[in-house]
């Protein structure tokens, strides 16, 4: 769909992994995605979760969803996943 064409993979960077014992990065990533997309099933949206050494995730988002994520508490930055070059 046209809406799908407008979506791209964004990286949502959330800084260090919080040290509180009960914190579950993957759960938070899923909750954030559900909240901004309004979709209960986000399997096709979540591309990667970063949870071992830092906190964040990569997801397929529309531009408006990107803006909403960027304004959420706990998010440092949101930026497109770009192609880098071997040098």
């Amino acid at each position: 769909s046209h809406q799908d064409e407008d979506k791209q993979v964004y990286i949502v960077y959330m800084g260090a992994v919080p040290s509180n014992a009960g914190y579950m990065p993957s759960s938070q990533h899923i909750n954030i995605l559900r909240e901004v997309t309004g979709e209960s099933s986000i399997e096709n949206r979540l591309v990667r979760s970063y949870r071992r050494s830092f906190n964040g995730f990569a997801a397929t988002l529309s531009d408006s969803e990107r803006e909403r994520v960027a304004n959420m508490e706990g998010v440092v930055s949101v930026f497109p996943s770009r192609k880098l070059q071997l040098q």
Partner: protein
Amino acid sequence: TTASWDFMGFKENKTKRVPNLESDIIVGVIDSGIWPESASFDDNGFGPPPKKWKGECDGGQNFTCNNKIIGARYYTRNGGIIGTPQSARDHIGHGTHTSSTAAGNSVKDASFYGLGLGTARGGVPAARIAAYKVCDPGGCFSDRLLSAFDDAIADGVDVITISAGADLAARFEQDPIAIGAFHAMAKGILTVNSAGNNGPSTSTVSSVAPWILSVSASNTNRAFFTKVVLGNEKIVGRSVNSYDLKGGKYDLVYGKSASSRCDEGSARICSSGCLDKKLVKGKIVLCDTPLGSHEAEWAGAVGTIVKNDRSDVSNVFSSPVAALSEDQYETVVSYVTSTEDPKVSILKSDTSMNETAPVVASFSSRGPNTIIPDILKPDVTAPGIEILAAYSLDASPSGDAAHDNRRAEYVVLSGTSMSCPHVAGAAAYLKTFHPDWSPSMIKSSIMTTAWPMNATEDAESVFAFGSGHLKPTAAADPGLVYESTKADHIALLCALNFTTTSLRLISGDNSTCTKEQADTLPRNLNYPSMAAAVSSQTEFNLTFVRTVTNVGMANSTYKANVVEGAGSSKIDVKVEPDALSMKSMYEKKSFTVTVSGKALKPLEPMSATLVWSDGTHTVRSPIVIYAKG
């Protein structure tokens, strides 16, 4: 690597090593994967992985780790090129090359079809490798790269080498390598990154974060040449030509005279579809650009002579090719147009001594740093021209799979990708002497012990080489180091307008961004080099505040000396105090460097070098002042 380590005085069997500690070092390579069957990664003589290793071998289909390659992961499952096998196996060759340069075994009699013959080896041949594959023929996407950092840090690698980057520098919060490297630094892991291949234009360096060690590329004293024989005259061109035409002389034809379909402009560069097979078959063709060799080969030519605007680099081609400088090329053009029956031969390449090394590669990206103008980037230079190292048997040596069916275990490549793992190997080597040193101490050691490299008549060349050329053995005993902690870098981010909220998220602690920190100048980060961008309109008088830590001898006195650099007569440099008396190991002493001068013109940076010496150690820091804009 059959020449590069020796060139830096890092001789096999003549270099002090700590084998038991080297065997515990793990180099994390974020790249295009690895070719596990290469002799460079044979695990004969290696014991089980170090106890600290927390990673795994998740290399996918047809991939087995061993006691040399102790870990492998791949991130090309989603969005990878269809048909590319799902594994950490290297289908490009690049990751195998960089892995072997950083930490490959010593392999005797390595060569590319006899060229560059010698012992190929990494900086730490006894160390282990963990391969993180983020690149496939479709590219290296940021989201994969961050997954690789996420895993490598947690897996317990000691050093990360990443020979990839964007075309331009990005703000830190949007730069995946800066983000990954920051969290690596926070866990005591140094990240070494290629500076980029967009030189010689200025402001092209893409690796700019101060917690990364950014590497530019130089040549070594070995260069590959390809001779072209015209009648009785020999012309020396560049290329790594493994094809032996046995000295045979072939008819020479100019591309512009071998086309009935294209206009002269397209024909002379041998554009695709332009050459007439019947006019070039069995001949050697003259093409105005290197890309023309593909068309010549397709049309049945025996070989190609091309004009090359990069005269400092020899590349591998998929057919017999000699790349000539403009002057040399014009000589051949003159020959072909003035001779009735022009004949030519392209000889197999040979190597010769390059007297002018080390010189920064023309392709190596230059500063200034566009994100923090007061942090000099790149940081250091290492060999990145014509490096022979291990390769994937799934990739063609020229990188041109459509035309090149050859397969080789060792291949010659050039780029800052090749210089980066040299520095990573050296950093790993330092860790064997100083296992507890922080990333900034390792980085400082490499930078302050570098060989001096001089600015050329081109004043902007001070933005090319950083602190100078890597010298691994000297780096192991630096005398003094400039340390900077995670907290120092958080304070720098505060000065770059990051909010307390963001800083707390990034640091994972209760960091604050006070007004005092926000007012701190980035140039006062305790960095091993000193740079400042000043207004071009007015005189300047600025200071750098630095603190050094004594890692040399307990009782020592270091005296400061300032060595003039490019245009330094226009700047006045004062060091206060100009002597530092150390009484114990790890003692810290602070000093200020005051630099003053008249208004500078844009594009005319001034440079000098601060040298601290106790008679045994020489601790060098470049000072570069330049006008904004």
